[in-house]
Each structure stands twice: as structure tokens, then as C-alpha cells.
């Protein structure tokens, strides 16, 4: 069998494994991995391909989660509608945050994305009429897509894989399009992109909004799977984890963040780390990357150095 075909077979087998041989616990981890693949691609689009350090992913994730949860609990709508609205909520949040922050300096962008996340957490905590504050929203029903309910872990796994695959596919299409080229151009040299007639602001806003859609979708999935959400979904730890997944996985590549998501969802479970220890380790890893792999950092920022040994003029 040829190389790529063999890899495809292995991939399918690997994907099927949890269904066949997995305990409920293994399936649970597998489902969560799918969600993290989606979140990682969300960040990858903005950070890897767009070159923007965004801390806003939890904002989109949380918005998607709350919108899906509230619509399901209050109105009982079909999940095709609520999930679509959750993704749309992510887009709207992306536009709302992106509009003031993408025009200003890169420092301010990072600050605003972080602040927006903190603010949304505050609102979620205080707007008790709608969100029940710190009590959170519980007893979320299983999602029903056109009448078909997703209840068993096996069914959830299929849904998770399908959603993750869809997101990866969309990312692939977007990145390979003219728009994707423009996005990379804005990352590599903003001034030159402007001089070439590319609207840097609009390109970034679109990418940011699309990443919002991805993360919003992940939020809706997460809410229904765990059946409980609270303002903690807006927490910074999501950004922390995603940064590790994307950067270590390979920022600005299609499959790197997928690998990163798999490794860093499974590994902490296997090692049974307490949350504080896991976060501490992530912090140390991140610091080590910054200090000792600057080439790695340059790669993830997308400014690939000229290949060594370029021919003379």
C-alpha cells in the first residue's frame, strides 16, 4: 500500500478504536479531544495563519456554550438551530471584539481580547436572570438534530469526530483560497500587504469572526456533552491550554494543532494531573518555548527565515 493510503487506513482504524474497544472513560476523553481539535483550529486560524496573538477564544467558546444552553433550556429548539445560533454568536462576538481591537496596535489587541474574556465572565456571573450567575446552567438535555437525539457516548464520539473533521476541512479550504493567501500576507508583512491593496483590517476581521464560529460551535457541543456550564467557561485556562496545543503542535499548519490537541487532551488524563499542577506545567513549558526555542517561535509567527544556503544574487 502506498504511503498516504496506508496512513489513511491507520487513521481510520485509530479513529474507530475508541468505539470498538473503549471504556466509557476513554470515549469521554475521545469526545473532549474532538472539541479541542475544533478550538485549536480556531486559535490556529488567527494565531498561526493570521499572526495575531488572540486571547479571545474563551470568549467565543463561552458565548457559544451559553447561547446553546439558554436556547435549549428555555425554548427547547432543535439543535440544528441552536448550534447554528451558537456559531453565529461566536461570529458576532468576533466582530464585536475585533472591530475596535484590530485597528489598533498589536499590544492593544492582546489586551482587548483578554479584557473581553474577563468582562464576559463578569457579565455571566452577574446577569443572574439569564445565566443564573455562578450557579450555572445545569441539566442540559441531549442535543436533538432534526429529531435525532445524541445520547450514548458512542453517538457523541461520532458527532465530535464529524464536527472536528468539518472544521479541519473548512480551515483547509479557507487557507488554500485567495483569502488564505491574503491572510498569510498580512501576517508576513502588514505594510507590504497594504501597499498591495489588501485590506488588512477586513481580512483579519473575517478570520477572527470565522474563528469565533468554530469556537462557538465547540462551546455548544461542550455544553450539551457536559450538561452543565458556569461562568468558568470564559476562564483563561482555555487560552493557556490552546496556546500550548497550537504552538507545540505546529502553528500555521493544518494538522499540527490537531496533533497538539490530541496529545494535550490525552496526556494530562493519562498522567492524572491535578488542575493546578497541569496549569503550572503548561506555564513552565510555555516559558521554556519562549526562552529556548525562539526559532520555534519565529516559525509559529510565520516569519520563516530564508532557507540556509540561498544562492547568491
Amino acid at each position, binding site marked *: 500500500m502506498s504511503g498516504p493510503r496506508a496512513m489513511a487506513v491507520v487513521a481510520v482504524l485509530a479513529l474507530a478504536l475508541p468505539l470498538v474497544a473503549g471504556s466509557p472513560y476513554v470515549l469521554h476523553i475521545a469526545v473532549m479531544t474532538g472539541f479541542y481539535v475544533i478550538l485549536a483550529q480556531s486559535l490556529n486560524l488567527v494565531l498561526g495563519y493570521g499572526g495575531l496573538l488572540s486571547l479571545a477564544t474563551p470568549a467565543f467558546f463561552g458565548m457559544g456554550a451559553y447561547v446553546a444552553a439558554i436556547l435549549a433550556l428555555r425554548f427547547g429548539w432543535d439543535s440544528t438551530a441552536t448550534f447554528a445560533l451558537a456559531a453565529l454568536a461566536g461570529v458576532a462576538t468576533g466582530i464585536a471584539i475585533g472591530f475596535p481591537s484590530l485597528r489598533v496596535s498589536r499590544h492593544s489587541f492582546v489586551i482587548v481580547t483578554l479584557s473581553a474574556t474577563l468582562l464576559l465572565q463578569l457579565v455571566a456571573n452577574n446577569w443572574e436572570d439569564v445565566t443564573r450567575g455562578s450557579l450555572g446552567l445545569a441539566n442540559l438535555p441531549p442535543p436533538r438534530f432534526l429529531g435525532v437525539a445524541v445520547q450514548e457516548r458512542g453517538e457523541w464520539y461520532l458527532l465530535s469526530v464529524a464536527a472536528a473533521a468539518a472544521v479541519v476541512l473548512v480551515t483547509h479550504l*479557507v487557507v488554500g483560497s485567495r483569502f488564505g*493567501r491574503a491572510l498569510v500576507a498580512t501576517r508576513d508583512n502588514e505594510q507590504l500587504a497594504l501597499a498591495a491593496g489588501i485590506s488588512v483590517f477586513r481580512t483579519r476581521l473575517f478570520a477572527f469572526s470565522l474563528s469565533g464560529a468554530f469556537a462557538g460551535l465547540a462551546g455548544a457541543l461542550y455544553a450539551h456533552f457536559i450538561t452543565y456550564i458556569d461562568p468558568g467557561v470564559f476562564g483563561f485556562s482555555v487560552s493557556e491550554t490552546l496556546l500550548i496545543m497550537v504552538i507545540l503542535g505546529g502553528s500555521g499548519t493544518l494538522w499540527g494543532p490537531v496533533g497538539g490537541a490530541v496529545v494535550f487532551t490525552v496526556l494530562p488524563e493519562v498522567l492524572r494531573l491535578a488542575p493546578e499542577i497541569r496549569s503550572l506545567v503548561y506555564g513552565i513549558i510555555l516559558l521554556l518555548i519562549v526562552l529556548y526555542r525562539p526559532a520555534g517561535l519565529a516559525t509559529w509567527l510565520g516569519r*520563516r527565515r530564508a532557507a540556509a544556503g540561498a544562492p547568491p544574487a
Partner: protein
Amino acid sequence: MSPILRIEGLVKTYRGITALDGITLEVARGSITGLIGPNGSGKTTLFDCISGFQRRDAGRAWLDPGEPGAVELTVLPAVRVARAGVRRTFQQLKVFAGLSVRDSLLTAAQSGPGFSALEEVLRVPQVRVHERRMRERAAGLLEEFALAAHAERLAGALSYGQKKLLELAMALMTDPKVLLLDEPVAGVNPTLIEALKQHLVRVRDRGVTLLIVEHNLKLVFDLCERIFVLDGGRLLTSGAPAEVAHDPRVLEAYMGAGTRREALLDD
């Protein structure tokens, strides 16, 4: 023929330093015009102000002044100036290091007839037609600038001279009306300078007006029909190369007062 560019009373100051002190000039349509002056005389600032990369403090610049399609450049952001047909290169060479040479050219032609991002991602038919035409043009430019062999290499991997050629090719992808070249031969070896000179003449012959900032005075005097001389943010003088080269004020600006040189370049 009406001028293609008119600049009136352009002023730019930073924190007390006057970079441009009321520049007024016109660039003839279809010409190769030079802009020279000692370091710090304001040449790049002038480019920045008319191409939307800096906001001027006073004065205006027009593209196609007096024509029905006149565009006031000084109120536009950089993106709109580029789309209006005024392209530029930069003093510090800029390339898209992570894009291939071909993709860099295609990206430089991106701002087609106003496609939205959604249309581009979905590859609607108009986008595909535009893309095909741009690929043909890119292929032509790759041939012309002898970069065809490097078409799939990352732009960041090219040599300095090749990057300079790529920069020029990118600026030509959309048939600009005016090309502002900021030190196009800086740091380039003499053989390539000759080649670049030929390229520039060919570009002008296609109908593009060139305004060139350069320190390589030999190139400027060989190539340009008219030369503007800037000094300390002011327009010192202008004229044909021969006039400018022997103008005592220009000599003083470059060499300092009391210079005994009689010409800027040895003939």
C-alpha cells in the same frame, strides 16, 4: 499632456522636526522622474505621505489632477491609494517571506474588482476567472524578470537581488498608473543594476509613470528625464539631469558649503 501627480504645499513635522516644509511639484505623465537629496531631506517621508502610510500635516496630493477621475491621495489610507493605481516599494525591502514567489505575485494582484472574503473562499466563478487572468500575468512577469525558475520557492529564501526584482514585479501586477520606487537599486550589484535599469525603461514604455528616490546618482542621471532635489524638507531645485548636476546649490547641499566641486558627478 496633464501631469499625473500634483503635490501642493505638503508639510509634515514630527516633535519639532520639520520633515517636509511645503513641497510643491508636478510629475509628468509617462515620465521617469527622479527625487534626490541628501540623507534626511524628506524623500521617503514624501512617499509615505502621498501613499497613505503617514498622515501629512498640511498640503495635498492628487492623482490625475484636472481629469474627471482625479483622486486626492492625501486623504486616503494606504490600501485605497494602492487600489487607485499608485503602487510603491519600500526603502527596506519587504516581501511575504512565507508565500511562494508565484503566490506573492498573485497576492499583489488580490484587490480585484471588489470580491468579498466569502466569495473568495467559496471560489465563485468571477473569482476563478480573475484568478486565471492573474496567473497568466504573473507567468509573464516571472519570465520578464527571470524568476520563473524560482516560482515555487518561498520568497524569504530568495537572494537580495532576486527579492528586489520580486518587489518590482509585485508592484506591476495590477498595471499601476504611478510607481513610487524607494531606492530600487540599493545594495544591488552593478550587473543587476544594469538589468534593473532596462526593466524600468520597459515598464515606463508600457505607460507607467515612475518616480524614483535614489542615492545612486549615476542611475538617476542616466534614467530620469527630470529630477527634483530635496534638501532639509524643501524643494531646492528641479530640472534636467545636466542642469541639476552642475547646480551650485545642489552641490552645496550634498557636499557642504565651500565645496570646490563643479559637478555632482564626474562626466
